[in-house]
């Protein structure tokens, strides 16, 4: 009886055969992998939350690290994409949890709640930010809102010498002037801004294009100039009578309130508009004792304001007139006394996919109003910008111009998505683009690709709910409505740390191998091996291609492919 090197056993003569059938070796030498026509690919996909995040965060990794109690490490991950997690956790419209696959099970993860808890925890952590590396250029960033702050932060971490110019005397942009404290407490904003500047960003306040800043001179002093001036020029209503006193722009109102100025007179307020600015104005005035109605030309469901805002406003006592188109500002003695509106009904869908409001003939009505606040959207403030740089309402630098390669624009002013998260993502990408030109260690643009996740999104049909014990979402709740009206205390409550971690632990980890071992445990042939970079790999000498691993992976991180494909 001879033992071959591959593990097989041969009986050289029949005389070697034992009296009975008994074992001389295991079957391990048998290459059942030769049977296969399919095989598994263990590769991470993009989780839907990350795909939806305008800031490009690696949402799953952040959340799972936090759930594991590793706050500093979760902080490293989130701060490598988003310097303002405590802020975005409060004010972002969170498309991530609208996309959350768990929403099709027992309830989406409260991602903003977790992000906010993580952000707040990091404020007390005093993390060391990565050291400055390599860059030497002088960069001017114009606009100290979230886009500009983010770009300045990452450029400084890359080693560049950055000067950040802001219109107000403190950085923050619309974060500070456009979002009331009951949504974003000042202490939180200040702490995150301070951390963003900490690597050595030089800030100069009270400077804006066309008002203390000359673009050409900036260009001469810097190796590159980045415009991040946002979109905050008021839009007019376009109806007769809007020149009367008592008709104000929404953003301007909020800026004034931010500066501590008293609100304009007028006990009965009508706010025209359906976005966050409109509601922020409405609720800020409510807190100053006014009676407030918000009039919007489409329905409540179509209001661009983030869903909870409207609910909270109504709880506090704001009235909402939906499907109401402003026709005319009525005035008495030069001062606004009322707003005439027409009822509307949903018509054809427009370019945005929402039904166009069609006036209903003969349905005019009037809302009494001493103060009309117009919050009907913002546009680019082109002051100080050469006309050749503005196209279609946004900054656009022609590729063949002299300044291409030295002048850049990012965020809302360049046509960006309009939310804080969009701005943060835009600022980071701009910083990376600038590092490509000027040197220095650029921030990672695509965090998921950097950890080997593919671009395909992990859809719900790849999730196996049976592997996840039911766990309904924890609720955070809101402060009581009555006391809320009286001041600036935060409306939406946050999770305490244990609740935040418990909520974070509900994360399925869509498309992301979490080392759960289910593929390893279930393989009938022990053909799933541990320890590859993606977590596991197939032993092709054994894998019969059954596909149980691919079918059972709870988070769709294993795909069954044809061999040779």
């Amino acid at each position, binding site marked *: 009886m001879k033992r071959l090197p591959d593990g097989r056993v041969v009986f050289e003569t029949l005389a070697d055969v034992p009296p009975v059938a008994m074992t001389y070796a295991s079957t391990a030498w048998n290459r059942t992998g030769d049977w296969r026509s399919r095989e598994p690919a263990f590769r991470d996909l993009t989780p839907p939350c990350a795909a939806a995040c305008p800031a490009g965060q690696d949402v799953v990794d952040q959340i799972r690290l936090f759930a594991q109690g590793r706050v500093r490490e979760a902080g490293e991950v989130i701060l490598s994409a988003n310097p303002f997690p405590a802020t975005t956790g409060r004010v972002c419209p969170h498309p991530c949890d609208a996309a959350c696959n768990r929403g099709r099970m027992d309830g989406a993860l409260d991602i903003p709640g977790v992000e906010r808890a993580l952000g707040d925890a990091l404020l007390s952590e005093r993390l060391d930010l990565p050291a400055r590396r390599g860059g030497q250029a002088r960069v001017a960033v114009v606009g100290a809102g979230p886009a500009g702050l983010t770009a300045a932060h990452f450029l400084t971490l890359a080693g560049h010498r950055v000067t950040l110019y802001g219109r107000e005397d403190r950085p923050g942009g619309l974060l500070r002037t456009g979002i009331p404290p009951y949504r974003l407490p000042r202490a939180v904003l200040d702490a995150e801004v301070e951390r963003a500047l900490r690597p050595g960003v030089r800030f100069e306040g009270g400077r804006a294009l066309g008002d203390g800043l000359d673009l050409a001179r900036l260009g001469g002093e810097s190796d590159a100039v980045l415009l991040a001036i946002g979109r905050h020029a008021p839009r007019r209503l376009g109806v007769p009578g809007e020149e009367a006193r008592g008709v104000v722009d929404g953003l301007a109102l909020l800026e004034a309130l931010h500066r501590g100025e008293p609100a304009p007179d007028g006990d009965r307020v009508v706010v025209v508009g359906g976005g966050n600015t409109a509601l922020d104005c409405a609720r800020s005035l409510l807190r100053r004792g006014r009676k407030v109605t918000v009039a919007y030309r489409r329905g409540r469901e179509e209001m661009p304001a983030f869903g909870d805002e409207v609910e909270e406003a109504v709880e506090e006592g704001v009235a909402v007139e939906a499907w109401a188109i402003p026709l005319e500002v009525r005035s008495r003695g030069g001062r606004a006394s009322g707003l005439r509106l027409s009822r509307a009904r949903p018509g054809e869908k427009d370019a945005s996919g929402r039904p166009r409001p069609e006036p209903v003939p003969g349905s005019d009505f009037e809302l009494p109003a001493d103060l009309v606040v117009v919050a009907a959207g913002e546009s680019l403030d082109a002051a100080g910008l050469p006309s050749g740089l503005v196209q279609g309402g946004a900054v656009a630098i022609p590729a063949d111009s002299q300044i291409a390669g030295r002048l850049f624009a990012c965020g809302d002013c360049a046509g960006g998505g309009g939310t804080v998260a969009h701005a943060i993502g835009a600022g980071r990408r701009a910083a*990376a683009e600038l590092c490509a030109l000027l040197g220095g260690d*650029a921030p*990672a643009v695509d965090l998921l690709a*950097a950890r080997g996740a593919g671009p395909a999104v992990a859809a719900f049909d790849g999730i196996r709910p049976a592997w996840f014990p039911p766990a309904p979402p924890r609720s955070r709740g809101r402060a009581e409505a009555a006391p809320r009206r009286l001041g600036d205390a935060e409306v939406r409550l946050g999770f305490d740390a244990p609740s935040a971690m418990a909520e974070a632990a509900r994360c399925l980890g869509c498309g992301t191998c979490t*080392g759960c071992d289910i593929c390893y445990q279930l393989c009938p042939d*022990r053909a799933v091996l541990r320890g590859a970079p993606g977590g596991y790999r197939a032993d092709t000498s054994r894998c019969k*291609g*059954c596909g149980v691993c691919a079918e059972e992976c709870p988070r769709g991180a294993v795909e069954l492919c044809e061999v040779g494909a």
Partner: protein
Amino acid sequence: MADRVIPLARPRPAPEPRLRMPDVEVMQPGHLACPGCAAPILLRTFLRLAGPRTVLVIPACCCSVIDGPFPYSAYGVNVVHCAFETAAVTAGGVKAGLRARGDSDALVVAWAGDGGTFDIGLQSMSAAAERNEDVLYVCYDNEAYMNTGVQRSGATPGGAWTNTTSAGKKQKKKDLDGIMAAHRIPYFATVSPGFFDDMVAKMRRAIATPGFRMLHALSPCPPGWKMDERNTVAAARLAVETRVFPLFEVVDGVEWRITQAPRPRPVSEYLSLQGRFARLDAAAVERVQREVDDEYALLARHCAEGSTDWPLSPL
């Protein structure tokens, strides 16, 4: 040009194993199971829990072939191959022999298919149960004589195609669970690889219980059930969710307890996964649904009448 992109030396979350299993592996790869066969999933899991001081007694069935031919073996423990009808009694004999030589701690397991349990092996299993032999009997049930090429057995469900019931089996599946409960054995449980934690807990409990204990495991067979190999575990899960194969345990024949009660799904979801039920029309599916509901109601009555609050303790 950028000097370099900051390399992603950032932390990743730690692995989170979902299934707590001992780190030991007993069964070897290279065995002859069809791709996607549930039996090696069951056996590999079981042996990791039972450990190397285990003797498997295996009658004629798929698992007697899966182990590999002389001179090889995949299972990594002692295996006594035995005649078709004799799994339970041979196991009892092995245990008596081990007792005689002082190795009474070794676990003796009869590991048999549905043919060798429901049909030809029923007699010797019934007697071994009546004698309360110190044997753990596992029936891995793929619901037909699969090893011989898919012929019907007493375990084949009504309506299922096999090579001897091409128009669908007329009779219902034999109620082996009721039979074994009536034997008042110390522990009986149904298990499904689609509910892994439940299966592991029951395997552990059965291993630790002295006397005659039995696990009835659903073991889907992709070729015999005519379904894609990747659906083996999913089918085992659906069988439970559609209440075709409820998960329950019976202690001493009188304490009945349903151990998993997932949100029920219509039986059509289970049937439509498998080509062996393709002939069933809507009326037939409705009949199956009614039968499943009636059987489950009966099981629920057993549980209501006979049980106390019985925690599923991982012994």
